[in-house]
């Protein structure tokens, strides 16, 4: 009888423990395997909508590239009332910044992330300006960074966007900061992508910071400049 009881209590207990233990083991082992796959996924890079000054490219303005909608308006218009004078970085939800955890960083909360991205943007602009070697770096730096941030905030990438696409837009400003012309200087090959970039610039509409610049600086840098759009933060 006691042997019987042992059989009817011990065997099921042993089998039960074996089953659960095995299952947990499998899950843990499999889970760690899956983690490796996740870790091996391509590190997401911050967006690189780099601002390039047009001074070097001025000799060959818009004739070099296929321009679907060039809109060349070289004559500065008088002051237009700005439709949406909201140039600041915090004005809209920022899809670009939130999707970019910097690689090799262990733990981020969202604000740190945003701050980091902003820093990165500024250093990027800094580097750009160093290479172009223009005059007053500080004010130009600030203006370029604001323009960049304003455009990035309003940029919605179409689903057809792929890594490796590059669209170069030619942008013309008047001294008040109004955008008077946007054209595609170099198409990415995907019209939806080009259009999304143009829409982002048009939505920005006006960059009031430009008005702070004095005339020579404006003429040299922002009368006509280029924006390069790369969807580098996309995962596919």
């Amino acid at each position: 009888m006691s042997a019987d009881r042992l059989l009817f209590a011990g065997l099921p207990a042993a089998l039960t423990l074996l089953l659960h233990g095995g299952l947990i083991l499998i899950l843990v082992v499999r889970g760690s395997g899956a983690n490796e796959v996740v870790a091996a996924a391509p590190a997401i890079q911050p967006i690189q909508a780099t601002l390039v000054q047009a001074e070097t490219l001025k000799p060959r303005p818009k004739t070099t590239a296929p321009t679907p909608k060039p809109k060349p308006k070289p004559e500065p218009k008088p002051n237009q009332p700005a439709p949406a004078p909201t140039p600041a970085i915090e004005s809209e939800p920022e899809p670009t910044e939130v999707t970019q955890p910097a690689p090799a960083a262990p733990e981020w909360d969202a604000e740190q992330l945003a701050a980091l991205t902003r820093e990165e943007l500024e250093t990027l602009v800094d580097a750009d300006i160093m290479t172009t070697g223009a005059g007053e770096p500080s004010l130009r730096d600030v203006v370029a960074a604001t323009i960049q941030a304003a455009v990035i905030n309003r940029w919605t990438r179409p689903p057809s966007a792929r890594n490796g696409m590059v669209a170069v837009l030619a942008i013309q400003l008047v001294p008040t900061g109004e955008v008077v012309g946007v054209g595609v200087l170099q198409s990415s090959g995907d019209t939806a992508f080009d259009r999304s970039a143009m829409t982002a610039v048009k939505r920005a509409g006006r960059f009031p910071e430009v008005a702070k610049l004095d005339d020579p600086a404006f003429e040299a840098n922002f009368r006509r400049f280029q924006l390069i759009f790369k969807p580098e933060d996309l995962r596919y």
Partner: protein
Amino acid sequence: MTQELGLIELIVGASALVQVVMLILVLASLSSWFLIIQRVMLMRRADDELLVFEEQFWSGIDLAQLYREGNQAVTEGQLPTGVESLFRAGFKEFSRLSQQSDMDADAILEGSRRAMRVALMRETDRIEQHLPFLASVGSTSPYIGLLGTVWGIMHSFRGLANATQATLATVAPGISEALIATAMGLFAAIPAVLAYNRLAARSDVLLNRYETFLDEFSGILQRQTYALKANQSQRR
């Protein structure tokens, strides 16, 4: 994101209520599997015993001798189970009642049938014991798991409300950890429901066969009773 999201880290990092829910579900799963294995073993043994005993019973052996064989086992401390306990209860009552000369045939038959009914009830209890537990594990553990999940998701969304930057990375671990509770609930519930249905059907079949045996045996007893009483009245 190179952050490790192992199963264990998720469970350890879960909130207290979710952990309690998980603990309850693990216990439910353990005990239900224990019962499933034990019940299946018991059921199988009862089937085997029934087959063996029926073979012995219909082999033409003297019933008094069969009873005496059982006696030996009882004195060794092994209580009769299954259909043998039915037989022993009925036969014991029959022989006891037929010793008394003033009993008439119907009363003897009624007495032994009642004794067998009692034994059948006891067997029913023994076979269907713990089956309601399986049924309640099967029906409630998904809800318990769901409670844990809803709580965990509530928690992670409340955490999201404090952050200004809503990233997928801030909610995803919380939701993933919360969903573990549902998975565990389903893991506990599915085998319990399946086993409950199967075991209930099998115990029905087994009890039906016991009942059939009861009727067959009372047929034999009836024949013997009337033969006995006819002898007694002749002798008188």
